[in-house]
């Protein structure tokens, strides 16, 4: 573990501090962007968090931001106030957020070479907010996975331990934010894909209420579960970014027309204020979220965090979410079912790697057989099976009914508590290859997060300490549209633990990123896999 480095390095600032420094003229957007691009270009070989670095686009956006700052400064204080909130602040996009004229592969070989002809809604929002897109981050193929190992472009290393995964599927964004390659990141969360990597990388990640952020222009995995959300290195940054992303979009019929508060402005300002905000808050601790297979040290960190919240004035009550156990099974029917349809368009007719085999059926088989990875094929088969005639009622329909029961559990809980507090992930970051041979063990990574997607609720993961030097995440779960309360709770927790020793620590493997002898994640991963294979052979 290393101590905090010099404060003159602009990449070490939080996004809201960058925004302030840019506005004050202490820093130029160009300078800030170059600092990040420099880090990425120097270090990403050892981490592989980025699938596409848009140096040209980023520098151009930063240059324009500087011109706008200059113009605004000439116009006086009002001019600066009128500037958008993220002007000149860098951001990392998960590789499934479409940006006009830029590639987007969703971690899949089948979309290799695809250049989007249009902007996602949130890409437009980010541009309007002045953000500088640095590029696109690595992810599990089509967001199916919890480790980023299922990317066609190789796994991503966790900056806390480069031999371990950063979680997934938004592992690239999480690792990039943790390693100071970007102050802000965009992820998507279908079953935990923002919160779990946030927990495993010691960053803050929020999965918003379903319908809070438009899905237009986001490569779909499971349409009724997907949500887009922010990563940041603190709650304020994540809150600031959600205000930019959220809101009704006519092009997404499932996006809600519910006013979006200025989340960051509504946060407690000082640590004292943050601590005081916990008074009288009722927090539910769901018994069922301390699952079998949970690492004792992870459970210990989470219970300690809950105790601290209680000591600072929050009322902690145990609650029951009795259908939690069915979450995993139902999720693995509904999400693959939707995915099996969403991924049908990758047929080789229009884009992606098209294999020509003479006849249409042959083309489909060759394109999809060669273009999709193992996990994606597994889910397509699961989903296709669940929807097939004769099985639909027993699987898909029943899963939808159970989904309603899971939703009802939460509704009942929120009758008596303001929010729930729970672990984000049952374990810390695991080594490459540890769960590849056993899909169910991989699926269990999301046991504490996916019921929240099933119910369409918001969930926030904040760091709550370390277990053997690896970050542990604390999850706050709110009622629908109650992101505001989650951010306030997260901020309050930051406030009451502001002086904790672990808060001063940076990811332990940051120095290794600068060491040219450090193996790449792909090299580590195949070595790990080979060791695993020989171990399996020995048994």
């Amino acid at each position, binding site marked *: 573990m290393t101590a905090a480095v010099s404060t003159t390095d602009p990449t070490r600032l939080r996004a809201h501090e960058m925004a302030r420094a840019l506005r004050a003229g202490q820093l130029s957007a160009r300078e800030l962007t170059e600092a990040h691009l420099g880090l990425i270009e120097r270090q990403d070989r050892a981490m592989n968090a980025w699938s596409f670095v848009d140096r040209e686009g980023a520098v151009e956006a930063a240059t324009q931001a500087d011109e706008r700052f200059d113009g605004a400064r000439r116009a006086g204080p009002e001019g600066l106030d009128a500037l958008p909130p993220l002007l000149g602040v860098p951001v990392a996009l998960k590789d499934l957020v479409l940006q006009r004229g830029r590639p987007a592969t969703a971690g899949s070989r089948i*979309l290799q070479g695809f250049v989007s002809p*249009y902007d996602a809604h949130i890409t437009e929002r980010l541009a309007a907010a002045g953000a500088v897109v640095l590029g696109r981050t690595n992810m599990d193929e089509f967001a199916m996975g919890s480790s980023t190992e299922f990317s066609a472009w190789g796994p991503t290393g966790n900056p806390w331990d480069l031999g371990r995964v950063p979680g997934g599927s938004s592992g690239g964004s999480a690792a990039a934010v943790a390693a100071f390659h970007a102050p802000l990141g965009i992820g998507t969360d279908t079953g935990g894909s923002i919160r779990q990597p946030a927990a495993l990388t010691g960053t803050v990640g929020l999965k918003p209420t379903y319908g809070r952020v438009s899905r237009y222009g986001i490569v779909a995995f499971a349409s009724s579960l997907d949500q887009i959300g922010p990563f940041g290195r603190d709650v304020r940054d994540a809150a600031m970014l959600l205000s930019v992303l959220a809101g009704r979009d006519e*092009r997404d019929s*499932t996006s809600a027309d519910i006013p979006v508060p200025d989340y960051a402005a509504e946060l407690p300002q000082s640590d004292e204020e943050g601590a005081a905000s916990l008074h009288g808050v009722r927090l539910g601790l769901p018994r069922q979220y301390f699952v079998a297979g949970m690492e004792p040290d992870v459970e210990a960190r989470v219970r300690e965090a809950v105790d601290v919240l209680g000591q600072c004035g929050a009322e902690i009550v145990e609650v029951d979410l009795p259908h939690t156990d069915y979450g995993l099974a139902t999720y693995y029917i509904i999400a693959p079912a939707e995915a*099996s349809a969403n991924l*049908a368009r990758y*047929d080789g007719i229009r884009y992606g790697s098209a294999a020509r085999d003479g006849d*249409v059926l042959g083309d489909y088989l060759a394109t999809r057989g060669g273009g999709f990875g193992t996990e994606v094929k597994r889910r397509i088969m699961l989903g296709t099976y669940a929807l097939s*005639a004769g099985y639909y009622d027993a699987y898909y329909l029943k899963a939808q009914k159970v989904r309603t029961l899971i939703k009802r559990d939460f509704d009942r809980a929120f009758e008596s508590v303001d929010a729930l507090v729970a672990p984000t992930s049952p374990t810390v970051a695991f080594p490459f290859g540890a769960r590849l041979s056993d899909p169910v063990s991989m699926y269990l990574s999301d046991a504490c997060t996916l019921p929240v997607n099933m119910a369409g609720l918001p969930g926030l993961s904040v760091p709550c300490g370390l277990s053997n030097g690896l970050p542990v995440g604390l999850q706050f779960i709110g009622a629908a549209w109650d992101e505001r309360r989650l951010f306030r709770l997260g901020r309050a927790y930051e406030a009451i633990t502001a002086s904790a020793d672990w808060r001063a620590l940076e990811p332990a493997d940051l120095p290794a990123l600068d060491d040219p002898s450090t193996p790449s994640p792909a090299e580590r991963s195949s070595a790990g896999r080979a060791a695993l294979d020989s171990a399996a052979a020995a048994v």
Partner: protein
Amino acid sequence: MSGAEAPAATRYEAVIGIEIHVQLRTLSKMFCGCSADVASAPPNSLTCPVCLGLPGALPVINREAVRHVLATGLAIGSRILDITRWDRKNYFYPDLPKGYQISQYDLPLASGGSLAFDTSQGPTSVSIRRAHLEEDTARLIHQVDPDGRRVSLVDFNRSGLPLMEIVTEPDIRSAEAARRYAEELRLLLLTIGASDAALENGQMRVEANVSLRPVGQSAFGTRVEVKNMNSFRSVERAIGFEIARQARALDAGETLVQETRGWDDGRAMTYRMRIKEDSDDYRYFPEPDLPPLRTDPAWLETIRMGLPELPATRRARYQASLGLTPYDAAVIVGDQGATRLFENTLAADPSLPAKKVANWVTGEYLRLVKPGGSRGDGEGGGADGAAGAGTGGAAGGRSGSELRVQPAELAHLVRAVETRKLSGTNAKEVFRRHAETGESIARIVASTGLQQISDETALREAVRAVLEAHPAAVADVRAGKGQAVGFLTGQVMKQTRGQADPTLVQALLRDALAESQD
């Protein structure tokens, strides 16, 4: 029809169900903002991420398309559910960009209903199972490229156009009734403005499920799906052929297979397209990108109030209140232009006898629109030639909109004939000129001098001259040869260039002959 059909009809009963897809009349596509006016657009010029099925694109419902289906449902007496749903119908094909079609599975916008119409066997009615909304596919064009390779091109302009699918119960028992059902449905859709429903350009696509069973048996026989029928005439011919083909096969002891057959109009036969080994599994499931569709009762009521008079109601009214024959009522209602002209002419002069106006509309007007006769769809057709294909696109004829007939002027013309200011023959000529030029009846009559001479003094002079010029004929009349009166009348008409009132001429002739005899 085939000689086998008559005996088959006595041994077997045909069981026919019809599925009709119609493109709805909307400005934009079903789930995106692209223009729906694809008729003359260059290939792939009317596309966007949504109708190309690009990653990340999401559908947004076209309210106008929903309105058309609800209006259709109300017009056929369907149940309209408060909440309906969209479903994904999954299958792979190069014309289907998303790999699924957004459709409606178990909760269609309109359930049940019926459509009544006449056939040569009398009035009948077909039960309708459902009407739902979905999106059209792209169009595949198969060509040979400059290197001689067979290639398939995809035009996505059609992709995502709003389609309504209307499915009947297997209620139909003859090829003629199938044709008449399709014609009547088209008329209904035109009347309520839901679709332009032209078969020849694919706006309306008719598919028939045809099976036979021995008379008296209730179990259904093996079903064959018939496609590619591009006119009402081919609907009747294809189904008629299929009934005869299946009857021959059954008579020969063959087992029919469940298959899809196409109609080849040139060879006048159906041919095998593919065999359905087992039922297709489309793995329908609710479309997660669209919330359930709630039909606001107030909106539904507004749609109901906005429905025009429907064809069946109109035909009944023409007969009951206006005294038209069933034939005239059917011919007028069967053609939108004719209906408008009839209604507006009567409105222009409510004192006109409706029957006379009807004669003008079904006779002279439709003769100009469809020179081949008042049936739009050729020979071999419906019970009484009633419905026709409308004036919208009848081949060889003129569209009603090219004619410049003004209802007020037609009213004028009918009135002139009624008051004997114009002879029937000349009136037809005046009408023709009016229809061509749009000039007023009064001006045409004045400029051509075609007004009828009903002035007795002037006519008496003409009669006297004719009698003097034709003494032999006069002698014949006196000798009791009555037909000579006709000859003399003709001579008077000739002298007056047809303008004389023939009834008056005959009366004056008789008077003159009687006088000179005394």
